[in-house]
């Protein structure tokens, strides 16, 4: 049997159960969460919310007693620890990013604060294979693990009133892309001219938790071509 964590259970009100791992951001922990989530299924559970070190199961009806559910989850956890299976192969999703002040309002301030050149920043941001931990915050917003420590920069003191959809940003030790326009406190360093979320599709998101995201720096010409492609797309007429 591989090493087990001690899971803790906390009813969030009377319709949800929070299952927590130790408070760490680790690939080993998130992999367990994905595996446990895949092992759980019940007709009265509507949603499974994965985060860095937690899984929350949401019930369609009020539960008077969570103990049988806790036992059920714990049994499944023991089972997956006793019968380890290899995770299904991950997809690598490459996303083009145009790192240019014209589309990234915070890029110049960010570079001067970090005291690095644009070339160095692009190199450090495109090098890692980021793990898609989970989605949250807004539809299609990816929580990615793997940002280079040299690029870490605390969030802005005052969030921007509106960040454009497709903005690539850094906030603290995290990096991500805003799939939809929203107010936000991260530093915008680039723009991704590819639609990340399409509610018309049965699978509205381009990648699933466990997949790997790789950024590829593009030039202005390719940026405009890709941008023209998504603007001609039907879904964007709805925005």
């Amino acid at each position, binding site marked *: 049997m591989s090493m087990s964590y001690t899971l803790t259970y*906390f*009813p*969030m*009100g*009377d*319709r*949800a159960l*929070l299952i*927590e791992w130790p*408070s760490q*951001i680790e690939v080993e922990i998130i992999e367990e969460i994905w595996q446990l*989530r895949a092992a759980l299924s019940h007709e009265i559970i*509507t*949603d*499974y*919310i*994965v*985060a*860095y*070190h*937690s899984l*929350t199961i*949401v019930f*369609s009806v*009020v539960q008077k007693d969570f103990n049988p559910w806790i036992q059920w989850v714990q049994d499944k956890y023991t089972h997956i620890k006793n019968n380890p299976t290899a995770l299904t192969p991950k997809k690598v999703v490459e996303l083009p990013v145009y790192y240019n002040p014209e589309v990234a309002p915070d890029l110049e301030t960010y570079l001067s604060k970090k005291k690095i050149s644009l070339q160095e920043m692009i190199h450090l941001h495109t090098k890692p294979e980021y793990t898609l931990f*989970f*989605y*949250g*915050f*807004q*539809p*299609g*917003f990816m*929580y990615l693990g793997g940002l280079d420590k040299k690029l870490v920069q605390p969030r802005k003191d005052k969030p921007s009133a509106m960040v454009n959809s497709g903005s690539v940003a850094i906030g603290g030790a995290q990096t991500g892309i805003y*799939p*939809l326009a929203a107010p936000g406190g991260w530093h915008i360093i680039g723009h991704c001219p590819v639609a990340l*979320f399409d*509610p*018309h599709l049965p699978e*509205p*998101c381009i990648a699933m*938790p466990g997949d790997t995201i790789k950024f590829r720096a593009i030039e202005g010409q390719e940026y405009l071509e890709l941008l023209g492609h998504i603007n001609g797309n039907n879904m964007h007429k*709805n*925005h």
Partner: protein
Amino acid sequence: MIEVIKPGIYSTVQDKGRLGHAHLGIPPSGAIDGISFRLANAILGNNDNDAVLEITFGGAEFKFLIPTAISLTGGDYTASINGQKIPMNQLILVEENDVLQFGQRRSGVRTYLGVLGGINTKQFLGSRSYYPSITSDFRIKKGDFIETVTPLNDALTISGESTSFLENPMCQHDLTTECTVELQVYVGPEYSRLSYSEMKTLNLEMTIGRNDRMGYMLQETVANQITPIHTSSALPGTVQLTPSGQLIILMNDGQVTGGYPRIFQLTDYSKDLLSQCAQGQKIKFALINQ
């Protein structure tokens, strides 16, 4: 078909919500006052997930282009048809070209307009509930024509299930209260991180501030030293406490994960009740003994 003559300040199509998509960052949405939503459908003998209109602060005007039956539940805005006042919480028959208008506010914030057979707008990811970036529209507009399901002739017979719901004393709530609204809450995952004096501050009466379908802010702040958390789940009815002391009660369109400590979780009933409270309303959290 319903013609929108005046949309009001914020009116949307809502059903039970877009369940089963939280793992993609998609909030549940759905009628924010679940009790009044279920009542609107039950009165008509509709299915419990049939879509209705959720009208915030009245001000709307609709014209019915087919004869049908409707129900109004939730906030009372002195509704009338062709100038004649109509009651809340009852089945009302309407004729072709009848005009429904909202007047003065008497209680609540959100009125539900149920239509026989339900509203029949396009579903996105299994739901008709409006949400920006998912449905084509995020609010109804002047001049919109809203599709309704064409009712069968015998559809006016109320089903057994609906009748039993109507007999439940919890199927309607009193929205006329002028005094402090008590919200029943369970302790949240990070409640135990609060100091005794911080817990005591949370027992005081508070005031509703800015609010929308995403969340309700409270005007008072609670100075705190609570240790931060890594991003984790958030649900409708989750009460977050920010480092600056702001209290945020998440609602149906709220984000499914968040980085602020979760100190309370409202019961569904209290969340429904809160959705009928306006800015300035006094509230008090009442802990449920476990």
